[in-house]
């Protein structure tokens, strides 16, 4: 089980300062694609952190909704990496990032249809069998809906219920999507099956204009997103929570300040 506490996304920008600080997060999340082949400068500190902390791997390249057959070589390498570092937990995104063998390295929105639900369930099964682990899928942020025959909440719930994967609930994604696509985030959350949540994400976003927010993970978490997290907690969700920061990553001390704030809200 992921510790029922707060975690932090591990980033190269501050990972060398982790041991210089008395205060440390309960667990870290890493992006396996960045560490399956790691930069020589970071190997020692990465291996120390991975041996000292509980780790969750949060992938980017699986492309669960792609038409391209699952990359068995990638999955086998991923399994070796997870096994080598004894990482039990692996999560990914309910999206696609490649098509016809072309990689975009960006999380793209899926057509929300019954066929897609079935297709993803089949692929989750293959992934879980190869990795020898159950996985969690994150509700993605999106700026465009390519096609939808069903509500997003139904799409998420169906995939999670039928695939056997757990849900990684990204509260910031719900907030950003609700703003950009003009729906009520609380009503959205009310329809999500909370019982299948493995853990949650929280992050900052950029308010580009009154009409558009972008899920940049490049700023502090906004108050409105903390409020939405409170709402989730009031709904009875008591799951591990992770703070993400991917752009304009501040120093470790600043990250810890935000982490402590998250901890206060979490408890």
């Amino acid at each position, binding site marked *: 089980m992921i510790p029922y506490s707060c975690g932090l996304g591990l980033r190269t920008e501050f990972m060398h300062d982790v041991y210089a600080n008395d205060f440390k997060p309960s667990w870290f999340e890493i992006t396996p*694609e*960045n560490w*399956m*082949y*790691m*930069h*020589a*400068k970071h*190997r020692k500190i990465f291996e120390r952190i991975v041996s000292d902390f509980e780790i969750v791997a949060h992938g*980017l*390249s699986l*492309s669960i*909704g*792609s*038409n391209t057959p699952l*990359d068995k070589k*990638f999955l086998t390498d991923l399994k070796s990496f997870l096994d080598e570092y004894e990482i039990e937990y692996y999560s990914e995104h309910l999206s*696609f990032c*490649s*098509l*016809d*063998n*072309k*990689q*975009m*390295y*960006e999380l*793209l*929105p*899926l*057509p929300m*249809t019954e*066929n*897609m639900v079935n*297709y993803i369930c089949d692929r989750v099964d293959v992934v879980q069998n190869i990795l020898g682990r159950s996985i969690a899928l994150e509700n993605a942020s999106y*700026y*465009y809906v*390519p*096609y939808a025959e069903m509500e997003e909440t139904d799409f998420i719930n169906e995939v999670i219920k039928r695939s056997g994967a757990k849900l990684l609930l990204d509260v910031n994604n719900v907030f950003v999507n609700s703003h950009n696509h003009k729906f009520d985030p609380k009503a959205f959350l009310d329809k999500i099956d909370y019982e299948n949540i493995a853990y949650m994400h929280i992050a900052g976003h950029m308010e580009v204009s009154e009409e*558009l927010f*972008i899920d940049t993970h490049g700023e502090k978490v906004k108050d409105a997103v903390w409020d939405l997290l409170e709402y989730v907690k009031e709904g009875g969700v008591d799951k591990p929570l992770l703070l993400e920061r991917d752009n304009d990553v501040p120093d470790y001390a600043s990250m810890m300040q935000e982490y402590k704030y998250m901890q206060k809200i979490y408890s």
Partner: protein
Amino acid sequence: MKLEQSIQKRFIDTITKQEPLAMPSEAIEIYTELIYYRFLEVFEKAYPRFKKMVSEETFDKLIYDFLKVGAKTPILWRVSGEFKDFLSHNNDLDMPFLADLLEFEFLEIEMFMQKYDAHTKSAFSLQKSYTLSKEANIRHFSYPVHHPDFDANPEAFECGEFTVLFYYNEKSEEVLYEEITPFIEEFLLSLSPNLSMMQSIEKMAEVYEIEKDELLEILLPVLEHFHDENILI
């Protein structure tokens, strides 16, 4: 899934500018920009020297041209290698040294991403056998892209044959390189675990009809340096 996949294909073709806009433009532009900046970030870190030699417009165009061809690897840092191969076939840039320069820049990344074995150091001895470390790399270039003044005026450098030895220095955590002669390259590649260093020197002296002591005098400081840098193990 035909419907879904045709929708996904059209979406990707549109955001990579292969198909004219037939969707709400702002949403599409966001994705186009997100993808473009992802590639830009990776490529400008991988090829800082090449990027300085071309205009921003050219660099942007090359990224969009590459997007149309498409990246294959799921591992992001490796996409720089695919970009290198793509650019090496580009004849519009009028940079005869381009393939060499990109090879030089990408090799540094590849070497940083390599796993290095821990080495236990003992004093260099001519009685021991050594081989060229698999962690060291030898490359042949037609242009001296390793020369410190090359970037300032590449046209001033003539085409030729240049052999460069690359290695990772654990202390400085840097990929270092130095030009070596074809003779040194041949000697390094001739090393065998079945021969002591002295035997290898004797063999080379015989092949080139040089006095063994004369050759030893020339090679010794070079070999000691290579041993210090874990180029010889």
